[in-house]
């Protein structure tokens, strides 16, 4: 029974992401890692013992900790990627603002 709940949660997340992309509220390019994460969630909820096998393979004695580690690594990765993008965009916004201010002044002085 528990398994069904997890499958439902994973599917809801997956459908939600796909819906956002289809409604063009989320870009295809940016969605890649989230769709991948949702797919992994679905797979893990259908085959919960796969994480045990993987833990066994990696010689990790407590399988849930592997799950947590994977989640944290994913979140840190996504977060760092966002920070990088924010920094890039901040630079571009400043540049745009500066150019626009100069251009606006130029246009006004030609009037």
């Amino acid at each position, binding site marked *: 029974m528990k398994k069904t709940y997890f499958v439902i949660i994973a599917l809801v997340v997956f459908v939600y992401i796909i819906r956002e992309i289809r409604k063009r509220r989320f870009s295809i390019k940016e969605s890649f890692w989230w769709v991948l994460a949702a797919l992994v969630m679905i797979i893990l909820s259908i085959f919960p013992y796969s994480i045990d096998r993987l833990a066994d393979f990696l010689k990790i004695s407590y399988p849930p900790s592997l799950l947590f580690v994977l989640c944290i690594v994913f979140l840190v990765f996504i977060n760092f990627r966002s920070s990088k993008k924010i920094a890039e965009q901040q630079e571009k916004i*400043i*540049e745009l*603002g*500066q150019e626009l*201010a100069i251009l*606006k*002044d130029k246009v006004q002085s030609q009037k």
Partner: protein
Amino acid sequence: MEKKNKVLFVIPAYNEEENIAGVLEEIKNDASFADIVVLNDCSTDKTKEVVEKNGVKCITNIFNMRYAWNVQTGIKYAYQNNYDYVIQFDADGQHIAKEAIKLYEKMKENNCDIVIGSRYLKDTGYPCPLFRRIGTRIFEFIIKVFCKRRIADPLSGFQCLNKKVIERYAIMGNYPEFPDANLVIEMLLLGYKIEEVPVKMRLREAGESMHGGIIKPIKYMINMFYTIIFILIQYPRKGK
């Protein structure tokens, strides 16, 4: 006939309605050969009106950029309009127009890239808070160690830049948030020629300083050290 150099005073201003008129008046009287541009950083007071009433060019940002990027807008303007020299000048009345001429003269005389107006090169009687004095000393020491040069006042915003530097600053994408000692170090490591001239400065007349309070200077120092570490990693050290 010698080609006349185009000189531009770049004045970043944020809520300086009380000081700016006097500053502009002074420049017009004492340095009439130069053009002036005021960069109004979305002031909430009448800075823009006061500047325009004085018949001076005023570029207003579309959002608040804060000091450094506001200055960079002015440098971009100078670059696009083909100015030969830029003099960075404060809107709060601290900098003296007659002293700016000294920077310009030194620039032409020594053919250097940046001339810094220094409060501490000679005793100019500038009263300086202890914290700032200590900060200046620390940066002076860092520059001495890594660049083998003495720059007595690396935190001075009173600078004259030549065309080469204008171009570099105008097109550099990562112009620092606080363009002080870090930028001086970067330019020295890149081989630009920097000189200092002792200048007099006044204390602020009205309005609020951007380095006031306790938290801001601490944040500033941390930011500065952090940036300097990366500059030292990025560019090869001199005399190695």
